[in-house]
């Protein structure tokens, strides 16, 4: 646990991050690190990505001020960064387009991806279709049943969906299976990981592709309000949308960064996915971070009403931001999230993803704590169309 803080070459964030992978993957991770670093400094790559974001993603995404919702959040000004309006309905597209371009640059023709609820799988399949890449998506068998609509979407986009029957048959096992595929086919295949976890360079690279959220939002907030927000809030599963909006504010010491984890049925129940709030430091899927684990270091199953937050790990940079006190992490229960889900739908005409609803529930808490002078910036990371079935079941609406 004594990794140097500044050894970015190994992708460390304090004692977190790094690479815990089979040696077979090192060459590919080095190749990817180099491709990413080269692309960062290559105006042609940056232009290609920016053009895609303008003409395909629909960037910049707008800011909506939620005035009626704000009445339930202590009267604070509530600014919503509308990543839900991106093509494919969430922030996930920012990362997949970046990585798909890198895949082509590395001369690889096949991408593999893991998915839980299916949002990242759909985004990856979309990017693959756009760029003419073969795409295989690993998805836990349980999740393929719960999210059959997204399975169909991926198939319509030309991807192959492989149900994973090992282990708990959920997201964590889909990642294991994707890594096994990658170890075997690494010469021809890029693993398009969907969050800021995994071995270096993924946490850094995926963050860099999502930073655009915070870069745009910081500017938009200054234009609209004339000052920086008091707090920036986002939901945290693996933590990609949160790090994307947090990162450009890290040097702004007066801006609080607040991540909202999935508290499930409450931390004390043990049925949650709040990895920082309720987990311990450990190694999972190639990186050291907080992990939900037992005394033997075996990964525990996570629980959340939100499939996208239902993961027993979290990005290593969040672990570090937590430990140094730069960001705060709170757990939001299923019930709190569903209340905020319903409230935003009825007060603003925006149905958020259930993941995002955790951030909105956090905004209600923080707004009430800070009062009406506060300005809160919330990453509205995804839209809720995919969650209609879950929400209908929760609220007892017959389908």
């Amino acid at each position: 646990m004594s990794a140097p803080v500044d050894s970015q070459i190994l992708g460390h964030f304090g004692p977190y991050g790094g690479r815990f992978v089979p040696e077979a993957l090192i060459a590919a991770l080095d190749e990817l690190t180099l491709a990413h670093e080269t692309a960062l400094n290559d105006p042609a790559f940056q232009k290609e990505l920016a053009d895609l974001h303008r003409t395909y993603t629909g960037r910049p995404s707008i800011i909506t001020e939620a005035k009626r919702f704000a009445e339930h959040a202590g009267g604070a000004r509530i600014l919503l960064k509308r990543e839900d309006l991106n093509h494919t309905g969430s922030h996930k597209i920012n990362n997949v387009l970046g990585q798909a371009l890198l895949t082509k640059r590395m001369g690889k023709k096949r991408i593999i991806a893991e998915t839980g609820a299916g949002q990242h799988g759909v985004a990856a399949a979309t990017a693959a279709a756009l760029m003419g890449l073969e795409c295989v998506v690993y998805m836990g068998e349980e999740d393929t049943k719960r999210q059959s609509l997204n399975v169909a979407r991926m198939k319509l986009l030309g991807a192959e969906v492989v149900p994973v029957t090992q282990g708990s048959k959920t997201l964590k096992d889909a990642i294991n299976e994707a890594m096994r595929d990658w170890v075997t086919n690494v010469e021809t295949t890029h693993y398009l990981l969907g969050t800021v976890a995994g071995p270096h360079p993924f946490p850094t690279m995926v963050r860099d592709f999502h930073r655009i959220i915070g870069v745009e939002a910081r500017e938009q907030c200054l234009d609209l309000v004339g000052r920086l927000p008091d707090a920036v809030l986002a939901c945290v599963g693996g933590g990609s949308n949160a790090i994307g909006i947090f990162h450009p504010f890290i040097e702004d010491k007066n801006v609080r960064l607040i991540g909202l984890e999935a508290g499930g049925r409450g931390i004390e129940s043990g049925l949650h996915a709040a990895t920082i709030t309720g987990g311990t430091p450990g190694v999972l899927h190639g990186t050291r971070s907080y992990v939900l684990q037992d005394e033997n270091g075996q990964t525990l199953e996570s629980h959340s009403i939100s499939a996208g937050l239902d993961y027993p790990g979290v990005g290593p940079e969040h672990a570090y931001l937590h430990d140094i006190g730069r960001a705060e992490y709170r757990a939001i229960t299923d019930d709190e999230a569903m209340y905020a889900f319903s409230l935003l739908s009825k007060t603003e005409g925006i149905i958020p993803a259930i993941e995002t609803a955790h951030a909105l529930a956090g905004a209600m808490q923080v707004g009430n704590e800070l009062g009406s002078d506060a300005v809160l910036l919330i990453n509205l990371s995804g839209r809720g169309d995919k969650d209609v079935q879950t929400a209908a079941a929760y609220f007892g609406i017959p389908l």
Partner: protein
Amino acid sequence: MSTPLDDLFVKTRKENRAALIGFLPAGFPTQSGSISVLTAMVHGGCDAIEIGFPYSDPVMDGPIIQAASDQSLKQGTGAKEVFATVRAIAALAPTVVMTYWNPIERYGVKKFLDSMKENGGSGAVTPDLTIEESSQWIEETKKLDSNRIFVVAPSTSDERLKKVAEASTGFIYAASLMGVTGTRASVSTGAQTLVDRIRRVTDKPVAVGLGVSTPEQAHEVARYADGVIVGSAFIRLLQESKSEEEGINKVKDLAIALAQGMKRS
């Protein structure tokens, strides 16, 4: 100070043969059953034993070892059971533990090595510990004279092979192919190329694993490697057997057949 594993390779090199290394996860098929199976492997002719610490997320393992690990975990196998198995088997043959990194980190690096020593284990194979993350591991294993066995792959560059070889003791684990554990119809031709490349940077023993399952394959590998590691083939026999007794007999027979192929002449 040398470990029993170090001594084994001195002996097999003198005898101009390779060492046969058998793998089984602790607690599979049951806690007592695993000790019986491993004992049969040694009686059949395995020169050393690799005991797997079953882990919930084994990304280096194919379906056969995954299923065995899952079965073991469901019965509650943890560090206590792993070290009890080490204790029983190290009395018969040089024994190492194969484990993903998180169980070691969770148990405590120093405590893990203390337990290893107390129970007679020679060291550990760590398939997901990269040399960049291993400074504490190297420091503590040095203090306790415990073997640290790193895994290399066909994709490992010459420059890294040198670094990994320097960091390794006991033997260097050469993964014969790009992939996960399991039985294969043939041993990849890449295995010999990799071993040749390792020989150019070190004279430490090299053992080949991944996809070695038949006596013919083992004999072929024994011609150029110091050690031949067989795991999935043993486990498959146990999974296919109707009773534990039948499984143990088949395991012993396979070990006898594999051991005959270890001589180079």
